[in-house]
């Protein structure tokens, strides 16, 4: 670490005003503050000082995502070997998934960070760190067969139109990773839903086997068109077809523990999303229309699709969720309830988590406003009665 610090100090003058690599100063600054906590402090105004800065928060989220990502890689391989009927060892399956997922991660980071670097350079600002997490989330919420160029187009769209036009990290109204997914979902529906995208059908570097016309439906897709699949432990461990990182409840739970232990995510949001989903699931179980998905047991609703992943990693995004503590309960509850409502009542979309979170992103400021105004009027009343 010491050597790295010395090296950075040595090359630093090149990037300062007048240095020969001055044009890349934002890149240098970005890496330097990523590797070491910056020793500079704010020069103006009043600021609250905390031992942790946003780059460190982002690192914790990335660490929390790792279990789900690693399991996702294994599951990509498992689904492929399972569907093609080829025997494969654990290492082969994981290697296959690793090779299938890695290009997506690279594309997402290169495109997203590339745009962030250009914008930072252009506006003469520091590089903002928000994309560290978004870039990891994006590959995890798409099907494995999503082509790389689509991912690149969608990532560019969401970084520019969901983030930079609003003023960059911390100013966005919508979660950029979900905007990427929404763009893909509405622009290229054939590559984002249906029966042919969830299992990779090509061999990669000799691993696996190329098969034409491989189909596998997600359990939610099956429940939508046919009958509700019976609950099985695969739904909890995650050995089912689905978007890369979203299938395993256990891996996501490990991530949730890391997020809650480090205090990055709010337990209020997370808990209330699950409560909202469970309550709405029970309501449909009791009074729902006569369709298979309406009578899917509520605990199965919570395990399947992107529900857990959305609840743990998307709904808790500190930028786009409610900021007031009481508001977080309302915000989370409505996300959970909306997700189940969209799943059950909308014939077009088998999954509702993405749209539910994006919808509640819009309402988060309103919820905060109501909570704050309530507090003000409550205290005003108390002050009046004490007089």
């Amino acid at each position, binding site marked *: 670490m010491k050597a790295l610090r010395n090296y950075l100090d040595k090359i630093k003058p090149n990037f300062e005003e007048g240095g020969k690599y001055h044009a890349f100063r934002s890149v240098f600054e970005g890496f330097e503050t990523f590797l070491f906590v910056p020793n500079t402090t704010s020069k103006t105004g009043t600021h609250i000082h905390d031992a942790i800065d946003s780059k460190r928060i982002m690192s914790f989220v990335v660490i929390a995502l790792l279990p789900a990502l690693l399991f996702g890689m294994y599951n990509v391989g498992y689904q492929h070997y399972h569907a093609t009927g080829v025997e494969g060892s654990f290492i082969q399956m994981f290697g296959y998934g690793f090779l299938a997922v890695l290009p997506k991660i690279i594309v997402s980071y290169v495109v997203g960070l590339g745009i962030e670097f250009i914008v930072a350079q252009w506006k003469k600002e520091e590089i903002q760190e928000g994309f560290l997490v978004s870039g990891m989330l994006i590959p995890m919420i798409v099907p494995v067969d999503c082509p790389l160029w*689509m991912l690149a187009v969608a990532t560019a769209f969401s970084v520019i139109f969901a983030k930079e036009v609003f003023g960059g990290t911390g100013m966005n109204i919508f979660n950029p990773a979900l905007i990427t997914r929404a763009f893909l979902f509405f622009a290229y529906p054939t590559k984002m839903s249906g029966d042919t995208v969830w299992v990779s059908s090509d061999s990669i570097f000799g691993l696996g086997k190329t098969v034409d016309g491989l189909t596998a439906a997600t359990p939610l897709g099956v429940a939508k068109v046919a009958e509700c699949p019976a609950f099985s432990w695969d739904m909890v461990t995650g050995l089912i077809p689905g978007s890369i990182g979203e299938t395993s409840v256990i891996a996501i739970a490990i991530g949730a523990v890391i997020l809650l232990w480090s205090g990055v995510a709010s337990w209020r949001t997370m808990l209330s999303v699950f409560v909202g989903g469970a309550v709405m699931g029970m309501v449909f179980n009791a009074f729902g229309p006569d369709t298979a998905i309406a009578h899917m047991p509520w605990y199965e609703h919570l395990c399947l699709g992107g529900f857990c992943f959305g609840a743990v990693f998307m709904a808790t995004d500190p930028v786009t969720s409610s900021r007031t503590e009481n508001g977080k309960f309302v915000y989370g509850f409505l996300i959970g309830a909306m997700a189940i409502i969209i799943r059950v009542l909308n014939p077009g979309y088998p999954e509702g988590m993405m749209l539910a979170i994006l919808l509640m992103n819009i309402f988060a400021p309103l919820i905060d406003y109501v909570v704050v105004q309530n507090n003000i009027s409550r205290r005003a009343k108390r002050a009046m009665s004490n007089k």
Partner: protein
Amino acid sequence: MGSLFSAKNKEVFSTPISMNNPVTVQVLGICSALAVTSKLEPAIVMGLSVTIITAFSNVVISLIRKTIPNRIRIIVQLVVVAALVTIVSELLKAFAYDVSVQLSVYVGLIITNCILMGRLEAFAMANGPWESCLDGLGNGLGYAKILVIVAFIRELLGSGTLLGFNILNYDAIKDAGYVNNGLMLMPPMALIIVACLIWYQRAKHPELQDKE
């Protein structure tokens, strides 16, 4: 009034096409810009219809502007616009039935197009018929220009065609993995493209940017 093509008259005609564009600068007529721009052909027809109606209604109102009682001027303006819209709508149904089906209610809704009422109120009520005609043509063409740009992008990327002719839907392109962008055919994308045009124009002309 001066000569027919004096510098001032030329400016009356040309500013609405660029620097004072009704869509990108005044942000009027957005609803129809979202609704009719998923294909190029209806967008062109719509742009021409609005141009013709704006020019004629400007001329008519300008001619009778001194006899219109001030308190009922909106009603008079609406009657003139409605008559012209009906004529255009009937002509479209007679000679371009397919396009008029695609445009559906939006031809009739030209009556409520903010650009028309805006020009009648702001220009034709205070200027002579020739200037009003130029102003109407300029504003109509400024509107048509934006519609055509938006429709060009949306039809090319959304359907892979232009004016119905195949541009991108070939097997070779499909085999390379290209898929038409379905989002382009939905109204939100028209809004984003219009926003990009506004962005481009304001970045190029700092005098259009809002002062803080």
